Structures are given as structure tokens and as C-alpha cells.
């Protein structure tokens, strides 16, 4: 038995415990367990996991699994309630193919609750709703299963910030999150996901988004912490005229790994998708970006662009970037590119010629690279906080 198989067996034992519970979510848990039992923890022979080894995760001794309770900042106009509120709760899990996503299958098998956020028809919720998760790292790692369903009904709008951090700087934890987003006709959802747990935390997130006609969706994923982070973000542009913007910023340091897999499925004509993932990698860290864009037959006038620039701060850092376009329609506009670079020597000299010390100049240029993503964050306080945290982590990386 390999280490991954042994870990799979331990996780399945936890799933069996969860299966004892009855209630409305029991059938979903069963489906999750079945899918996870079939796949197990994936090894690097699977294409989607080629660059991301789960061996460090498999080495953990998992104590228990539960749905965490976030601190919630609600906003007038939006409904926020638990999935255990059976009368109101929608069906969960319709957007995720559990057979394709082993960690989402695991999260589903262990699920005991979910939070539903809903903007009713025509309601514009301007200020961001905030969900803050603080994990408590422990010697025997716990698995937390934040699960969220976001629904924006016709012509409504909603902004959401999901913020993950750790209570302590050391100690392992495994956050295995699922976010389902349904954006109704002419509605708009903006989702900011912040991952700034300690450097021993494992974080998997699976976000599935469905856009109706003329719907708009924006996501920003900011990854500053975590031992191993894997984000799967899949969108289906199911209605004509839908638009999405996917932005990401990941900072690698030490031995950390950050893996972003995106999938944008243009199923119908006149869809627009924009992707910009920026990576900053130092130390012996590893970045992975795989962005797939599918333009289905008949999805004419699709306009898809994807870009993945990366800044390598050290010789030991590594990025595996793979944009992937699958185009089955002939009248479309698609662009993609990835770039790997170092700090601009000319800019570095310019700053130094203005009395700024080399180390500060390097940090400043690195922050400048990240600012394009961070400056767009929905709240001033969060933006300032993350700019400072980014700067502090870059400075720590430069010292190490």
C-alpha cells in the first residue's frame, strides 16, 4: 500500500463516521463517499495532478472533520442561512462533477452543513458580505469543510469576501472548501477568496460557477500562505452575453506550492472571459497554473483572454504554466499567454539611483507587480491589509 492509499483508507474511515448521520444531506454524503472511494487521493500520474503531489498531505494524521463556523459580516438585502434550514435550502452539489474532483468528493462525503448566501431578485447588495474562517492548527490535523452556496437571482448583485487565516503561525490543518455560485439572468457576483493561513496548512478549494444570460462574475483569488494550495475554479457560461473576470495572485516562498486550475466553458455565443493570474515565487516554492478555455461548437463571437505572468525571485523557484485553448467554433477571439520573468534590472537601477536600498527596491518592484490584483479588492481595509501582508511576506522571503 502506498502512502496515498494508506491516507485514503484513513480518510474513508472518517467518511464512514460521517455516513452514520441522517438528514437532508445524507444522500449527498453518500455520493461523495462513493466518488472518493473510487478515486482516492490522486497521484501525479493523473494529468490534473501532474505537478502537485499530495504526498505531504497524505503524511498527516487526521483527527476529525467538521464544518467550521465563520464570522459573518452580513449586509442589508442579502439572505444568509444554513443549509440545515431545509425549507429554504437549495439542492447542493449540482455544479460539481465529483468523479473529476477527488478532494471535492472527500469534502462532500464529510459534509455536515453549508452556508447559503442569496441576493433576491432585483436587489443590489453593494457592500461586501464577509465570511472569515480562522483555523485552529493542531498536532493531529483537523479537516475543516467550509461550504458555501451563492445565489444571485435575476438582476441582483452581490459581493463576497471569503477570508481564511490561521489562529497560530505553526501547526497543520486541512481546509477543504467548496463554493457553488449560481448567477442568474443579468445578475452580478463578485467573489474574493483570500488564503493566508500558516505555512503548514493544506488548502483545497473547488469553486463551480454557472452564469445565466447577461450574467457577470468576477473572482479574485489571493494566496499568500499555506503549505500546499490547490484551487479549482470552473465556470460555465450557459447564457448568451455572460461575462467573467478571473483574477489571481499567488505568492510562493519556502517550500510552498500553489496550484490554480481554471476552466472556462463557453457553451453559448457572445460570452466574454478574462483571466489574469499573477505569480510571485521565491525560495524553493512551486507555482502551477493550468487554464483551460473551451469554446463549444456554436459559441460564436466568444471573446476569451487569458494571461499568466510570473515573477521568479530565486533560482530555486519553479512555475509550471499551461494555458490551454480548445476551440470548436470559428468566429471567436481568443488570446492566451504565460510569461516568466525576473525583476527588471533597469527599474531596479532607477530606484537605487534615487537612494532606495537594493533590498527595498526589489520589494517595491515586487509589490508593484502584485498591485494590479490587490488594488482591485472590494474594500479599502482589506486592500491595505493584504498589501501590507504581501509586503511583509516578501520582505521575510528576501531575508531568508
Amino acid at each position: 500500500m502506498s502512502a496515498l492509499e494508506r491516507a485514503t483508507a484513513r480518510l474513508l474511515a472518517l467518511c464512514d463516521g460521517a455516513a452514520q448521520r441522517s438528514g437532508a444531506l445524507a444522500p449527498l454524503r453518500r455520493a461523495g463517499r462513493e466518488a472518493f472511494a473510487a478515486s482516492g487521493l490522486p497521484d501525479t500520474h493523473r494529468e490534473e495532478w501532474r505537478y502537485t503531489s499530495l504526498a505531504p498531505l497524505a503524511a498527516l494524521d487526521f483527527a476529525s472533520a467538521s464544518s467550521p463556523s465563520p464570522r459573518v459580516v452580513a449586509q442589508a438585502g442579502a439572505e444568509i442561512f444554513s443549509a440545515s434550514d431545509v425549507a429554504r435550502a437549495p439542492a447542493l452539489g449540482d455544479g460539481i462533477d465529483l468523479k473529476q474532483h477527488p478532494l471535492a468528493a472527500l469534502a462532500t462525503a464529510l459534509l455536515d452543513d453549508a452556508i447559503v448566501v442569496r441576493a433576491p431578485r432585483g436587489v443590489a447588495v453593494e457592500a461586501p458580505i464577509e465570511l472569515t474562517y480562522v483555523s485552529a492548527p493542531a498536532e493531529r490535523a483537523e479537516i475543516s469543510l467550509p461550504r458555501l452556496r451563492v445565489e444571485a437571482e435575476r438582476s441582483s448583485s452581490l459581493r463576497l469576501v471569503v477570508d481564511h487565516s490561521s489562529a497560530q503561525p505553526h501547526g497543520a490543518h486541512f481546509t477543504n472548501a467548496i463554493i457553488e455560485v449560481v448567477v442568474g439572468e443579468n445578475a452580478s457576483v463578485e467573489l474574493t477568496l483570500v488564503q493566508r493561513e500558516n505555512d503548514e496548512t493544506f488548502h483545497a478549494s473547488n469553486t463551480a460557477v454557472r452564469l445565466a444570460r447577461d450574467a457577470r462574475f468576477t473572482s479574485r483569488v489571493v494566496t499568500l500562505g499555506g503549505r500546499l494550495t490547490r484551487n479549482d475554479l470552473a465556470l460555465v457560461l450557459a447564457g448568451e452575453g455572460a461575462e467573467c473576470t478571473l483574477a489571481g495572485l499567488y505568492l510562493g516562498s519556502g517550500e510552498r506550492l500553489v496550484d490554480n486550475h481554471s476552466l472556462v466553458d463557453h457553451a453559448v455565443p457572445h460570452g466574454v472571459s478574462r483571466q489574469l493570474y499573477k505569480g510571485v515565487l521565491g525560495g524553493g516554492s512551486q507555482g502551477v497554473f493550468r487554464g483551460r478555455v473551451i469554446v463549444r461548437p456554436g459559441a460564436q463571437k466568444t471573446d476569451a483572454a487569458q494571461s499568466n505572468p510570473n515573477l521568479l525571485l530565486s533560482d530555486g523557484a519553479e512555475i509550471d504554466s499551461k494555458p490551454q485553448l480548445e476551440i470548436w467554433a470559428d468566429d471567436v477571439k481568443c488570446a492566451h499567454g504565460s510569461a516568466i520573468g525576473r525583476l527588471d534590472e533597469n527599474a531596479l537601477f532607477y530606484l537605487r539611483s534615487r537612494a532606495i536600498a537594493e533590498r527595498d527596491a526589489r520589494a517595491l518592484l515586487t509589490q508593484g507587480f502584485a498591485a494590479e490584483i490587490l488594488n482591485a479588492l472590494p474594500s479599502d481595509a482589506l486592500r491595505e491589509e493584504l498589501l501590507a501582508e504581501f509586503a511583509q511576506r516578501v520582505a521575510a522571503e528576501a531575508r531568508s
Partner: protein
Amino acid sequence: MSVHEKKALLEIRGLEARAAGKPILRGIDLTIRPGEVHAVMGPNGSGKSTLAGVLAGRPSFEVTAGFVHFDGRDLLELMPEERAREGLFLAFQYPVEIPGVTNNYFLKAALNAVREHRGQDTLDAMDFLALSREKMKIVGMKPELMSRAVNEGFSGGEKKRNEVLQMLLLEPRLAILDETDSGLDIDALRVVASGVNHLRSAGRAMLVITHYQRLLDYIVPDFVHVLAEGRIAHSGGKELALELEAKGYGWIEKEPPAAGEAQ
């Protein structure tokens, strides 16, 4: 060499330098004293920008011979940021764009690094705002350029104004202007020159590098040097610039006049 009362601020002797392995400077001798304005002219490829870059510490140039003393110290031993803190300033021919870093943040960081070195208190955001507004008026710079990323999307004239603004804020002891006039229309040139003249004082020196005599109508130099093939081919007073403008650089190369006495 004639006797001067003032000690040299910058002393260059036998300076040779390479860029990408190719010799560019082939033995420069130049002495600049406080209060003096020196102009360096010369055709493309004569080594003007290399000289400026070597003095400011651009890493891509390799000094192979000679020495440079700045206020008695070995300048070539200092890192670029140390040179700047000691009071050397280079206005770039091609100011660099820095995405994501606001001009305001950049200029405040630069000024405070210099002030700290001089043993002065650093300025807070309010004090810096007041000071930068005052200096911006001198160079006719739009206030909104302070909240934009450094030089990003600036017009050619705006970039050069921004260089002079930095010079006004940092108050260097030696300002080197590397073709600050290139590509400027006459109005922008006047503004830039008046900013430079604003800073002229008995304790401060300037090295004005230019391809065109026009700038020297506005920044009147004490000495003019002609650079050709990596050496100072001729030195004279401000009238030398007019002669060059009339006769072209070919004149220097074909029939070099007798060695000047500017030193």
C-alpha cells in the same frame, strides 16, 4: 592646471569603461568644482550616456581603468543608492516606468532615504505633500501625476518634468542631466531648464549632457566639453557650443582645435 580656491567636487582621471565588453570610454579627465555648470556635448556613440551611467553606478557598465573622486571619496566603490545619498543625482535620458508603484510613494521613499542619511527627520505624508506641491509648481507638473504609477503612461515631457521634480526634492550636490532636453518642445524645455536653474547655487554643480546646443541657451554653462570616441576632444567656454552648432560635430573629428584650458 590653473589654481582654484574651491576643492573639486568631482574629479575624473583616466576613466575607461566598457559596455557589453566593448570599450566606450577611453580615458576621460574632468574636474568639476562646486557652483560650476559643465556641458558635455558630442555625437551619438561618443560615450555621453556611458559617462553618466558610470558616474551613477549603472551595473551594466564595467570600469576598466582610472578613478573618480566625489568630494574626496572613491565614487566607484559606492553602490548606486549610496551615491544618491551622498548627493549625486542622474536625470535619466529614458525615465523608467514602474507599474504598481505610485509616484507619490516612490518620491517620498527616495526623499526620506536621503534625509535619513543626512541626519534629518523623515517627512510624513502631510509634510511631503506640501513640499512636493511646492516643487511641482516649479516644473509645471499636474498634481494628478503623483497618484499615478511612476512614469506609466506619462508623455515624454511629463517624464522629464518628473525627473527634474525628483532633482528639486532631493537637492543633490552634483546633478547629471542625461539628454534631458531630447524630444522636448520649446515650452517644455523652458520649464525643465528653469527647474534646473532654480537649483543652481554656489555649493552645487551640474553636468549637463546634451546633443543639442539649444538647451544651453536656457542653462548657460561655465564650461563646454566635446566628447568624441570616448575622450574629451575639446574643452572651452559656452561659445564652443555655438561653434559646434554652426559647424557640426564633424568639425571636431576632422580638425580638432588646440586642447582647451577649461581644466
